[in-house]
């Protein structure tokens, strides 16, 4: 038995693939040809979206670090300027998003009027002359003008706010228009790729080629860059196809297989592109500080995968059992709010996230270990990095096996306990053999290896739990309410912000600031590692408690899917009987 089984299984696998290359097996929804398209499509989409992570209006972006030369505080201040109004736009956005853009005519007209007004107001604020504010002695204006050293004054603050208003007007109007036009055809997750990909490519090129970083006056440079990146951000190019793949099948096991194999493997495309980019960057005169990185390298690295994404995007689809759009449940604001608040599992997840915030502001321990403790570089660095990152791959590929044998509660509690134990060992290593760098580092790396090994299956479980929570929400409220679930973030915001201040305050006290070289100082480094890790350990232990209340098992999920399928069938039938057009539903 032992000898014959692998060969038999391999044969069975190939036979299965051949038989169901174009037609899915009974009880399944995805053919193996679709697996291939998932691999190619997500590989391209993931690569493109990852490239975009290098281009953004944040301090760690090389464009801002080397060319715009803006202080990091500038980005925080802009965030604060935009913060109050942002709450309002978000609320409106939730209603639009979770209704997939299908609103009553009256609401739609009102929203278009609002968004048009915002665009006009935004433009007036951006291009209006507010220089007179520089001489004002009003306390608030003086306060704003005092921020000139970080590139902001009262006049530019108005322009920044105007940019925010313009952006929200423009983005809001697009949101209604394109969702309504494209969701019926392309589904809720993929539609935005179709309307955004071309303008996004143009913006990626413009970001590198528009020489706004040459503006000598920092105040002007800041608001101009903010405006440029607002335009850049209007057009999204997220990892939409992977999100779509999470709902590729109503069959729970099948979507787990899809996530484990074609999706995971597709990420290697990005790994290869990243290596190529490293090689190209190495050949640039100023490496990461070379503007050609933004003029040629990133545009090319983005546009090619973006084009491939569009080639494969249409080759697979989401399969959420849902009524046709014509029979879709209309989500009013309060339905949405109270709907998500009723979701027990979202509440559990929120509490976990809240406790997890205890680690907010912590530095990446791997960076500290590799670069500041061991001074790794070259081949040894590459070996250790790859060894540790590879540690998670074999278990990852076996995720379906483990997820079938253990329930999610067990897996997540195991995950939190292993994090707590692993971090405790690292802290002990630093505290008791910190002087012996080799010993301390070796212990830390072995622990990290095992932590990485035990991380990937819970991560997969976590993703699956997220999808299941969406299914359950759909059962509860008739829609997934993915946007409305953001309300939990509003409630936890103050706590996470407050808790997130704790570690940075400690780090500041231990000497950590914009100069990371302080990590070479032994006394500072040990404290910078150990104290946040201890707080994190407490967090991991506490995080096991909410999971005790997680009782959403496979049977419940299967029943939820049955309900959803039944709703889809019945509503589709009713629509047909009433002679209505059917679009966007999935009834199998």
């Amino acid at each position, binding site marked *: 038995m032992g000898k014959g089984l692998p060969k038999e299984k391999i044969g069975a696998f190939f036979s299965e693939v051949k038989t169901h290359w174009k037609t899915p097996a009974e009880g399944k929804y995805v053919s193996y040809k679709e697996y291939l398209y998932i691999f190619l499509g997500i590989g391209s989409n993931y690569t493109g979206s990852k490239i975009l992570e290098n281009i953004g209006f944040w301090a760690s972006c090389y464009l801002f670090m080397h060319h715009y030369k803006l202080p990091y505080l500038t980005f925080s201040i802009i965030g604060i300027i935009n913060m109050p109004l942002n709450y309002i736009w978000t609320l409106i956005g939730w209603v639009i998003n979770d209704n997939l853009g299908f609103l009553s005519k009256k609401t739609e007209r009102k929203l278009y009027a609002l968004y048009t007004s915002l665009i006009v107001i935004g433009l007036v604020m951006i291009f209006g002359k507010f220089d007179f504010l520089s001489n004002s002695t009003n306390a608030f204006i003086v306060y704003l003008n005092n921020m000139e050293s970080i590139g902001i004054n009262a006049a530019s603050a108005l322009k920044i706010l105007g940019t925010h208003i313009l952006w929200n007007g423009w983005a809001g109007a697009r949101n209604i228009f394109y969702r309504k036009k494209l969701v019926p055809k392309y589904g809720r997750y993929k539609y935005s790729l179709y309307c955004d990909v071309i303008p996004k490519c143009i913006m990626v090129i413009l970001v590198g080629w528009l020489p706004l970083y040459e503006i000598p006056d920092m105040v002007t440079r800041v608001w101009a860059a903010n405006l440029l990146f607002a335009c850049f951000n209007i057009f999204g190019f997220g990892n939409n196809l992977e999100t779509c793949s999470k709902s590729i099948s109503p069959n729970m096991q099948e979507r787990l297989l899809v996530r484990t194999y074609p999706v995971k493997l597709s990420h290697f495309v990005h790994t290869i592109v990243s290596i190529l980019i490293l090689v190209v960057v190495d050949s640039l005169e100023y490496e990461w500080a070379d503007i050609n990185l933004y003029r040629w390298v990133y545009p090319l690295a983005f546009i090619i995968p973006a084009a491939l994404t569009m080639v494969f995007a249409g080759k697979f689809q989401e399969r959420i059992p849902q009524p046709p759009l014509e029979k879709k449940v209309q989500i009013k604001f309060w339905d949405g709010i109270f709907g998500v608040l009723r979701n027990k599992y979202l509440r559990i997840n929120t509490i976990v996230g809240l406790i997890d915030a205890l680690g907010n502001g912590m530095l990446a321990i791997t960076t500290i270990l590799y670069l500041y403790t061991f001074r790794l570089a070259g081949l040894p660095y590459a070996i250790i990095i790859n060894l540790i990152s590879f540690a998670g791959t074999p278990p990852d590929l076996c995720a379906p096996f483990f997820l079938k044998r253990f329930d999610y509660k067990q897996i997540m509690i195991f995950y939190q306990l292993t994090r707590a134990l692993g971090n405790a060992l690292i802290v002990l290593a630093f505290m008791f053999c910190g002087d012996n760098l080799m010993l301390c580092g070796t212990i830390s790396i072995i622990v990290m290896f095992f932590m990485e090994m035990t991380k990937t299956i819970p991560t997969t479980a976590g993703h699956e739990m997220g999808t299941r929570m969406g299914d359950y929400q759909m059962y509860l409220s008739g829609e997934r309410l993915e946007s409305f679930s953001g309300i939990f973030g509003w409630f936890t915001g103050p706590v996470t*912000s407050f808790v997130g201040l704790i570690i940075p305050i400690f780090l500041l006290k231990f000497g950590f600031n914009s*100069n990371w070289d*302080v990590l070479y100082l032994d006394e500072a480094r040990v404290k910078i590692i150990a104290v946040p890790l201890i707080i994190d350990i407490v967090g991991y232990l506490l995080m096991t408690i909410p999971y005790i209340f997680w009782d959403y098992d496979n049977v419940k999920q299967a029943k939820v899917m049955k309900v959803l399928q039944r709703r889809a069938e019945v509503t589709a039938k009713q629509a047909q009987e009433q002679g209505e057009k059917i679009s966007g539903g999935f009834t199998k």
Partner: protein
Amino acid sequence: MKNKEEKQFKGMTAPVEVSLDIPENEIWTYQIEGLAAPHINKPFTNFKIKKIVFTVLILIAVLLSMYFSVRVVSREPFEFTASENGYEFTKFNNTGYIYELTVDYATELVTKTDVADPEKNFELVKDETKPVTSIAKFCFNCDEVVEVIRIGKDVKEIDGTSFYTCRALKQIIVDEENEYFCDIDGVLYNKDKTEIICYPMNHPAYLREKYGYNDTIWPDNSEFYASYKAQVLTYVLPETVEKIGKLCFADTAIAAIYMPEGLKTIETMAMFKCWYLSDIYSYESSTAGDITDYSAIRMLSGVYRSLPDGLEYIGSDAMSYDRSSDFLRIPATVTYIGHHAFWDTVYKDGDKFEGNEKIYIAASEEEFKSVETGDQWIPTYDSGLFNKKVELVYNTPKRADELAQYTQKEDGTYELTSFINTELLTEVTIDNALTVENGEVKEDTSKKVTSLGAYPFKWDNYIETVYIGKDVEQLDGNAFFNLRALKKIIVDKDNENYCDIDGVLYTKDMTVLLHFPAAYEKCDTYVVPSTVTKIARAAFCYSDIKTIYFPEGLKEIDNLAFLKAEKLEKIYSYKADKEVLVTDESAVAQLSKVYESLPEGIERIGLDGFNYASSLTYLYIPSSIKNLDGYCFCYNAYVDANGNKAGITEVNVALSETEFKSVTKGDHWLPEFRNESNDTATINFDAKR
């Protein structure tokens, strides 16, 4: 068979099978056992109360979120905590406009709301009932604005890390009444000067201002760098110093350091990332007292290249990333070397080693085994796939006092490569090699010196006369660059390669003027002989020449030729009817066809040719010009104290605008006023003399 295979494979992914019987009219209400009931298109119970509660809660949450977000970016400029003896200054958060600060009493920033200018609309109010007695670790960490910190009389505790990464900090000045600390010219010490605590990161900027440098000068500008390095980047630790504190010199631009033999401890990261630190000297005794700049070097005796004998403790990362040093000797007295103490002080540039290719150790290999060493204290370099440690050379003796260093050439004669004027000589003869024995300078007749390397004297303020022997066959004007006290160069009459006229150095055929001594005594007027076709590189650099007469045969003024000749007011040229070899003022009356201009026939003015010759007001460039290299007149214009443009405000060119286009011009050749509008001098084409 196939069915069996399928079954086995499907076994892994078999879905949970459930069946539910849901009537059509219950699809929106059907409740699954163990889960909450769906709530779709139905009114909520107690809807109004729920709405109100929700709204109130969410408003509180939002307001708190906004408050904490603002808290993240807004901190009090001054944070103090009460301690037993007074107040500890725990954190300074600069508003961006505080350039000078006195740490004596608890301070509060009060904004003046009636003033718009952010530089002036605040006031620092001190509470004199709250004296500051300590400054916490990392108190000023990463401040990028404050330039001067004054320490009050009551401060008793300061940690070396307090001022870490204050990139703009030029000086730390301590109140003279303070019983625990003091400063020497803006560098922080403990009161008895046994420990140097902090050398401010931007102290070189203060020294630049002190010594009249406008900009930073980098090592690749070798002519300037020698003097810059001496005046701005050299530090002499007083003889009293026993300890260099934690992070003391970290991230500074210091290039040369002199340490006393009494030094016992170099703390953790004390000289971390001193990228330009190339010269580490030690000395046996000093009469310099509190003089810590380059001028103290002359007051040191028993100077040698090494960490000082007597040193016991070298902390972790003490000198890591100091890549400019190429000689490091660890004395036999060392008992502890921390981890990574010399990390990354060597690297390979292609096949060539840079930095500390070897570490020299005074002790024997056996003796050195007793030294406690941390991990990776030996620097490593890339070698194939893995790094390789540098070689340790044991039993390295302390180098003897060296007045001069010579390198033997292929023909057996010697080249003078370095001359450190430890004996304060005013006259130097370049003929036989010089050595010092028991404080006496002697000639070693077995070593014949026939050439001088580039900048052998580096920086010297004492040498007034240089005698060049008959056998010297190779030198250039650069050899005497930066000898500010040099009055004359006398060449042996039998020398076949060089000659002098009245102390000015020429090639034997008199076609190249090689060097005009910086302290030449008859420098009001100088007539360049009619035979001269080229003024050599740096020939008049730093000289006090006021008026110069060029012959019409002059074709080239090489790089840096009149750089920093700040007193040069007039440039005349003459056409020689007969050979002119008299060079002083008496010759002027004999010259015919004199005109105020660069000479007809001049073809090239080299890089920095007249740069910083700021007393020039009139410039005429004849039609023969072909090359105007970069910066040749760049800083010859300026805006004076009254805001008026001064120096060379106009450049008169004999050529037409079209003809002038064919002249090769380097970057910034034209005089620049360095004002806000970046004005440059105007060019008058087709100008007449």
